[in-house]
């Protein structure tokens, strides 16, 4: 009798030790077979969302860069007049130097650079091709005007100033290009946000669908949980934790 009780006590101690060593099992464990399709969908959606975010961010950065570049600069074109062509070409250089001096004195202007003739030749390439240009071909001279950060220069006023000094010049403040870039980048950003929004909606829809499917496939478990008095928010938390874990796993895979 004593030995029987000793054996039973041993069994009890072993059982207690085994139970203590055993981890608490999840009520709603990760089910590889049933969860894999959802997991793949979430991986793909996360990948697309990341791509869209990257494209949106880089597009936005590029647009801001272009805008800043164009906003802070003007291009002045000193055109050769008929009398300046050929032998009198040195006079256009003279005019460019004077224009540089006049413009450099204006308050918003930070730096004026006379661009080498290669720039003017490069502008003609689309029309004349790579053929060598004759030396006596009258070419305009381009001046790059850099403004102080955050300041603007009225192109018409500047053109009038030069005109008063006897210099015929076209001043391009890039406002036309700026507007187009703004319009294009705004449209691209809008499309990116739209794509991102759609991906987020698709992710939410996939999660809702998966949760409903999960509820259906785990009907028995849900019935048992209700039977033992689990409040609705307890079962909701179980499901949301399970599918949030799938979502995080999908993000982690990326």
């Amino acid at each position: 009798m004593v030995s029987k009780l000793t054996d039973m006590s041993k069994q009890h101690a072993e059982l207690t030790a085994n139970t203590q060593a055993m981890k608490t099992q999840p009520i709603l464990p990760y089910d590889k077979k049933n969860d894999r399709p959802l997991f793949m969908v979430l991986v793909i959606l996360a990948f697309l969302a990341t791509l869209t975010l990257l494209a949106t961010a880089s597009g936005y950065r590029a647009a801001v860069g272009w805008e800043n570049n164009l906003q802070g600069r003007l291009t002045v074109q000193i055109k050769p007049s008929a009398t300046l062509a050929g032998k009198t070409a040195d006079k256009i250089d003279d005019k460019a130097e004077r224009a540089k001096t006049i413009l450099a004195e204006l308050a918003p202007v930070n730096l004026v650079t006379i661009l080498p003739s290669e720039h003017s030749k490069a502008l003609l390439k689309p029309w004349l091709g790579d053929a060598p240009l004759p030396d006596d071909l009258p070419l305009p001279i381009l001046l790059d005007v850099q403004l102080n950060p955050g300041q603007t220069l009225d192109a018409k006023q500047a053109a009038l100033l030069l005109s008063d000094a006897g210099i015929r010049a076209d001043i391009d403040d890039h406002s036309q290009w700026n507007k187009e870039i703004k319009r294009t980048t705004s449209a691209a950003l809008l499309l990116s946000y739209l794509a991102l929004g759609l991906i987020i909606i698709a992710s939410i829809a996939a999660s809702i669908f998966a949760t409903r499917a999960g509820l259906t496939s785990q009907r028995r478990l849900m019935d048992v949980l209700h039977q033992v008095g689990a409040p609705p928010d307890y079962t909701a938390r179980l499901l949301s934790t399970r599918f949030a874990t799938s979502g995080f796993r999908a993000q982690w895979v990326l």
Partner: protein
Amino acid sequence: MKRQNKHKNTGLHINISQQIPNAESDANIHFERVGFRYDREGEILSDVSFSLPPKSMTFIIGPSGAGKSTLLKLIYLNMRQSRGHITLFGRDTSQIDRKEIPALKRRMGIVLQDFRLIDHLSVFENVALPLRVAGRKRADYEDDVLGLLKWVGLGHRAHALPPTLSGGEKQRAAIARAVITKPDILIADEPTGNVDGDMGRRLIRLFTELNRLGTTTIIATHNTALIPEDANILSIEHGQVTGTISGEQID
């Protein structure tokens, strides 16, 4: 109040004082002209009236389709009656808010014919489920669960998964899960339906013992041979109570 119970199989003494519900129990059940019907169908229960006092043990008998399971579902708040009044724990169930139902269900233990065990959880985890749901820590309930498993003769099967259990073992695991929270009311629907006669008698003895410890016990069965002679019996036929008799009056 502390009682010791000697388990017949193991001989171990375990503390079962936790199994005794409040002495001032409000675990009475009162039906008054209760009717129940599904949409557009005839009444499954009609004008059912009876009263079960706290700590009583009652068997509900009747042929298949008589309405026994429906009656139990109304008691454990799985459905609401179409008409009449049901009083449970001193409250009119039609006045109970849905949000209160889980808390009331935690005061009842339910054993169903198909056991409703969760296949991927061990017997220990299945029995501990109501305690986990109630937010108790494993360290707090581990000894209680192991003690109860021993009491129902499943101490050696604590780590087993339900699919590996026999019908009788599954039924005892389901009973252990139903009583682990020390419910005021224990409801069993055909608990002996899937087990042989000998196991059926052992299960009824288990229910009788739980009732003796103070749990209001209601058992629906069509197996009248297993009903103890001193039990209260509610007979149902075609959705109506046809009589209340004692066990010794059954042929």
